[in-house]
């Protein structure tokens, strides 16, 4: 529980103070360690803070959220199928 709270705090600090790629790495590591749906809310926060309609993303303004969603679904799949996560 304590580690999960620490990860949440680290992700929030990364969103405010570190480059975007650090945010994605921290999010990925968080989801490797825990199935943490709250990462989606933090992704939304990052999108609300920084997003704009740009041609690179075809005007889509929730790239962080979508990326964390993909990470979450991947993490769930990995937990189900990989021996790394078996008890």
């Amino acid at each position: 529980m304590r580690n999960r709270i620490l990860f949440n705090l680290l992700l929030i600090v990364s969103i405010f103070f570190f480059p975007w790629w650090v945010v994605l790495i921290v999010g990925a590591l968080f989801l490797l360690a825990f199935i943490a749906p709250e990462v989606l809310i933090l992704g939304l926060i990052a999108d609300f803070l920084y997003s704009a309609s740009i041609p690179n993303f075809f005007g889509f303004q929730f790239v962080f959220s979508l990326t964390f969603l993909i990470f979450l679904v991947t993490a769930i799949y990995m937990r189900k199928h990989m021996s790394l996560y078996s008890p």
Partner: protein
Amino acid sequence: MNYLLQRKRLIKRRLGIGIAVFIIVVVILQASAPNVLSGALFIVTKPVWEARNAASVYIKGSIEMFRSKQSLVRENQALKRERSVLKRTLLSQSEIRTENIKLKEMFGRRVSESTVLSAVLSRPNKSLYDTFVIGIGLDRGAVAGNLVLASGNIIIGRIDAVYRSTATVTLFSTPGTENAVMVGPERISATAIGKGGGNFEIKLPRGVDVSEGDAVIFPGISAKVFGIVEWVHAEPADALQTILFKSPVNMLELQWVEVLIK
């Protein structure tokens, strides 16, 4: 055992429902109001970023205390020399600017620009979208579409969304962004395509005379510097030449910008 299995299924179902609801919320927000909560979030984050910037200035100042006296004296002398050169350059540019304004007025065009200085709260490298956040908003008269300048006359972006006391700025160099510019001493019209990080690309016919070091200007009654040409290349079989140019502003070191308030 039955209880554990049921609990697992319940958690899975709730997770599935949660993800589905999240996707629906994102789709609705994207379609209707992508920045609906941004204003409220900036009320919290603006003081945090301002405190971070103040702490950064204090720490840099403290580190300077450990520099040797000799290196400080050398730097002081070099800065004094640079200052006297810049002072002379500024004086001559001021004369040229005044003459330019008078000539335009002779042809019935009045140039009146008003700028507001703003601190940069969050630099472009923080954002996946190549945007940055500045510390002025509706309270200082900024509106979406206002041009943003750095180092006086270098145009770097445009305000995308504006809130009560903050605004989000998109850089002209955001990958895929296209902007009309004028290149070189002949002021040839071209379309600059953003490549990210202050870099741009232009394609022009081979015969057009453009050299490294030429200025790229943002069109308007009062010409603003867009970038400086760094590389010109044409393949022998190609009818077009590729021109790469870069903004003279280092986006990673942006601390202050000016917003052109119309």
